């Protein structure tokens, strides 16, 4: 399979159609030698899922509401 690593990533990201997904799974089943390459991509992909961030504060909401209010007032004039 050409671009196997990229296809593995698309599979893990849920970016393949149902048909492509089935074809990819079948390919993996029939080509065990690709399994370790797939696991390598998977381990990197799982790593990325650990990326997180804190919750934004309420001040951000207040600032947005104020900005929108100003824009609406300006539009009404």
């Amino acid at each position, binding site marked *: 399979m050409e671009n196997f*690593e*990229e296809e593995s*990533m698309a599979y893990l*990201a849920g*970016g393949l159609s149902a048909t492509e997904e089935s074809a990819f799974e079948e390919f993996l089943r029939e080509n065990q030698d690709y399994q370790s390459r797939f696991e390598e*991509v998977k381990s990197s992909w799982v790593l990325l899922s650990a990326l997180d961030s804190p*919750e*934004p504060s309420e001040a951000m909401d207040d600032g947005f509401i104020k900005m929108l209010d100003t824009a609406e007032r300006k*539009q009404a004039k």
Partner: protein
Amino acid sequence: MNSLSDNALMIKVKEGDLHTLGLLYERHKKKLFGFFYNLGNNPSISEDLVQNVFYRMLKYKDSFASDGQFGAWMFRVARNVNYDHHQKASKRGFSEEKNIENVNYAMEDPINETQNKKDNSLLLRKALAQLSEEKRQLLVLCKFQGLKFSELAQVLDISEGAAKVRVHRALKELKSVFVQLEKQ
């Protein structure tokens, strides 16, 4: 109104119904905040940058193509906001350059997770900070844009195939840096 797509809502904003922007804000504020935060900005600056994105959406609402993809357009605006912010900061002689020391504020995150997960998360942010700006953006966009390569390609103005190749390269490098940091 809540069932309308992002595109339909943005068209309403474009037509003058500015209040509808509030729904788009609710849907995307956390995603955008995560985008800026994981690019290495501190929480307070990340919040300012999110606001700036919505300010620009209003200002440049006419540039939204009605048949376009809202997500790709929003993240193009976000990338420009981030770029302009760092350009201005460097002109003022004040650099918030992303480096290992600067990402330590991640340790102040709310402590709802296990220490182990928190350590991994910090290490990952440190690894991310060592990548080039382009690679860091690719990975963060990939994570916070819902991992759709077609949209990523639109944001970066490249083909979907090229987007997959670049993300794969960036991911490999991230893993390599992460493993090195783990050994230290």
